[in-house]
């Protein structure tokens, strides 16, 4: 596979495209690429179309067949990721050994980070079209919930990895605030308890949320199934290399919110601030004049006044000479 040519931007548009694609402090939401293997079943086509529909507009769907085995050689997938600026991939393949297999791939810096292989259980699949009701608006952020102890296990397992990948896949863009109207649907993942040898199945259900008035302030929530109904069987898993994972989890400088110092809120709710001044020089302080407190009012100072008079007297004698000097100069 030829490496991608380094494009040198020749106009503002291409420069903007490259800047968008380059690493940034606050990242763009992940774009998902849906593609298929040389053999992939009709069922999987329906499933990938549904996933693509859920993820719009951040999803791209390829229709051509590709001869790729993700868990063995991922270089072509990396090429696709770089060309399309897609950091998530849903790869559909169908073989006798692994029927109806969906591989979810996550990328970091256009290189494969980790992969989860999930097999779709064909009997229980229901598509979006099979539910005859109105769907949620395109592009909304869904509510996500995980049920079952396997997802919460303290030991890193294929299920905890699957939880991380599924969250990344469905969470949508990170926003600061959400419209109350925009909380329309919920994606619910549940995993059965481990019973015997078989690995438990992950159930994915999407529900529309309807709120009804209840006696209290908080509304009563009702769920109505709308979305694709898919049951996944856990397959192989490729975990991330520790250094790559560490790089991927790094937080850039300045991202952590700085706690505002010296600002508090009162009991009443007023915002109170503390200003720190330096040490003040009190010698130049202008105070009220109180004549009675002046130091020169004491007796000791009267003597000084006499001494001052003597000096005045003496001062007369030399003054007589200076006028002459002055006259001489003028002439």
């Amino acid at each position, binding site marked *: 596979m030829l490496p991608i040519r380094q494009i040198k931007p020749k106009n503002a548009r291409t420069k903007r495209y490259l800047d968008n694609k380059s690493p940034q402090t606050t990242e763009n939401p992940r774009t998902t690429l849906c593609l298929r293997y040389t053999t992939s079943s009709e069922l999987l086509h329906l499933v990938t179309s549904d996933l693509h529909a859920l993820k719009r507009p951040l999803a791209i769907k390829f229709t051509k067949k590709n001869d790729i085995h993700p868990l063995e050689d991922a270089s072509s997938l990396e090429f696709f990721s770089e060309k399309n600026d897609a950091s998530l991939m849903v790869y559909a393949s169908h073989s006798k050994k692994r029927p109806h297999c969906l591989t979810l791939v996550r990328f970091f810096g256009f290189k494969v980070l980790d992969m989860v292989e999930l097999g779709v259980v064909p009997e229980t699949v229901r598509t979006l079209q099979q539910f005859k009701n109105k769907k949620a608006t395109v592009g909304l952020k869904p509510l996500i919930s995980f049920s079952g102890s396997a997802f919460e296990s303290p030991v890193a397992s294929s299920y905890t990895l699957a939880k991380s990948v599924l969250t990344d896949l469905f969470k949508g863009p990170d926003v600061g605030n959400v419209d109350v109207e925009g909380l329309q649907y919920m994606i619910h993942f*549940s995993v059965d308890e481990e019973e015997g040898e078989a690995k438990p199945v992950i159930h994915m259900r999407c529900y529309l949320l309807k709120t009804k008035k209840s006696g209290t302030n908080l509304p009563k929530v009702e769920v109505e199934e709308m979305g694709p109904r898919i049951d996944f069987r856990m397959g192989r898993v490729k975990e991330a290399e520790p250094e790559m994972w560490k790089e991927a989890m790094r937080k850039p400088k300045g991202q952590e919110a700085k706690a505002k110092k010296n600002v508090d809120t009162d009991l009443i709710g007023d915002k109170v601030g503390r200003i720190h001044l330096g040490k003040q020089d009190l010698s130049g302080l202008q105070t009220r004049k109180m004549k009675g407190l002046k130091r020169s009012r004491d007796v000791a100072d009267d003597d000084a006044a006499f001494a001052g008079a003597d000096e005045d007297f003496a001062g007369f004698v030399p003054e007589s000479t200076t006028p002459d000097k002055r006259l001489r100069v003028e002439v």
Partner: protein
Amino acid sequence: MTDAKPQPYTYDLGHLMCNDPNPLPSLKSATTDAEKEAILAKTAQECAQALINQLLSCCPISRSQDDGALQIALPAPEMQLPREKPVPTEKQKTKWEKFAEKKGIKGKKKEGKLVYDEAKGDWVPKYGYKGKNTDGDGDWLVEVDEKADKEGEDGEKGGRKKAKKAR
């Protein structure tokens, strides 16, 4: 609502996420598909209810100024997910930037085209249509400036002198 859950739910409101660590009720007991779906729907409904309750009670709600819609301010997500691309490297300062920093040279701010005219008491363009530099063009009376006149004559002479030299 009597919620007797053995393990409490945990929430990650930044991701609008709810984690229910309780084991799922066994689906083997459900014989038909419909029953199975009913169990799952019930679990989901409980999660949804808890999550909406948490959202509406814990996050500050405000009315947006643009269209009057109610908005909920979400906190930062707790569950850290891996980045898409590596953290951007610090850009190296160019030779000029280093020099300018050392010398203390700061960039020129754009002044804009308008200049305040004291006489008119208003902002007029520096040049162009009704520009300040064309103010004197429309005067019906122009004083003769002796110095300027003399220079004009020399200039002509100078021109002829130059032409002669060229030959």
